[in-house]
């Protein structure tokens, strides 16, 4: 393996280990926000993509990626925000989904379904007790990527990572 290939693997690992500041159990690799890493003319370039257009975490994530790479011996990395292709919850890894559930947030449905405009919601199991006796309180939750639900079995409210 060439030096560049080894470096790329390390760069990807270091950048990918940065966590979402709003859901610190999720790395940006598990979230699918880390899209690409490159080394060109000795400069490290990292592509990240926002979950939502207005996601306020992107600036922090870009800063954290630069800082993590600098600490790992890759100073001066450039982080680029790319919009296309548009992020989808399908890019979230199984490890990410499990981490979300463990953190008390219902993960998005396995395939980003686009339900009809006023159709019924997908079944959303309670992340705490697993019951399907849950109901949506609001399409919009504590951050742009989450909806607010409650479980009528264990009576706990919970966030759901929205399907996109």
């Amino acid at each position, binding site marked *: 393996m060439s030096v560049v290939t080894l470096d790329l693997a390390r760069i990807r690992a270091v950048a990918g280990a940065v966590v979402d500041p709003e859901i610190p159990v999720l790395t940006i690799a598990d979230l699918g926000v880390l899209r690409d890493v490159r080394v060109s003319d000795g400069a490290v370039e990292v592509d990240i993509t*926002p979950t*939502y*257009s*207005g*996601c*306020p975490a992107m600036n922090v994530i870009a800063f954290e990626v630069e800082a993590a790479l600098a600490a790992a011996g890759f100073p001066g990395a450039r982080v680029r925000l*790319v*919009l*296309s*292709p*548009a*992020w989808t919850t399908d890019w979230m890894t199984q490890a990410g989904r499990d981490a979300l559930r463990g953190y008390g947030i219902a993960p998005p449905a396995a395939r980003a379904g*686009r339900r009809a*405009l*006023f159709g019924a919601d997908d079944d959303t199991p309670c992340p705490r007790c697993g019951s399907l006796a849950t109901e949506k*309180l*609001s*399409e*919009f*939750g*504590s*951050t*742009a990527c989450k909806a*607010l639900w409650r479980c009528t079995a264990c009576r706990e409210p919970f966030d759901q990572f*929205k399907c*996109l």
Partner: protein
Amino acid sequence: MTSIAVAASPLVEALLARADDALVHAHRLSEWCGHAPMLEEDLALANVALDLLGQARSLYQYAAEVEGAGHGEDDLAYRRDAPQFRNALIFELPRGDFAETIARLFFSSAVMLPWWQAAMTSPDARIAAIAAKAEKEITYHLRHAGEWMIRLGDGTDESHARMAAAVAKLWPYTGELFAAEHETIAALLPDAAALRPAFEATVARVFAEAGLERPRAGWMQKGGRRGVHTEHLGHMLAVMQHLQRAYPGAVW
């Protein structure tokens, strides 16, 4: 701080029109933060505003690049005066009561969902990329606003009366959302007139369930797309732009 002059081209103007729509609408929605009728709605309107602000940023960034005069997104948002804004008039009207806020979000989302869907196939790759994100977000906005239209329209006498009044007030401002693009860039952007059937179908479906009547065709207000605004925009910009004007280049 002094205002900037934007080197206008049809594409820059068209991008600014949609960016200004989103920014001004986001500002009106954010005025509800801390004042919405319930906590869930407070969060919802703030989240919708945040989505629109994100879309505005993407569009301003691209407009600034196309303009090529060294301006950035903040210059376009904070250093233009009211006559340089290209937003449709519906977005600058005062937020009104909750029914007006919801009716405005419903009408604009019912236009912008098919608009962004059509923009996803633009030959301009940047527009297509912005559209692919925005389209997913607007789907949520339309669903949210539509559900409220039904709840309020089909609710109590009071909520029905307020929603009917909001519809009557805002309907004459919907025509401007279908203005044609400049012929030289028409191929890059959706043909707004062609979106009308989708808009009408959404309105018909939701109004039927909400027990609301679609107003008859009549006089339509316009002017915002060429910089002729109501007095309300100037007041809004005085608040929105105050910090950057008083402390040029201020950052967090």
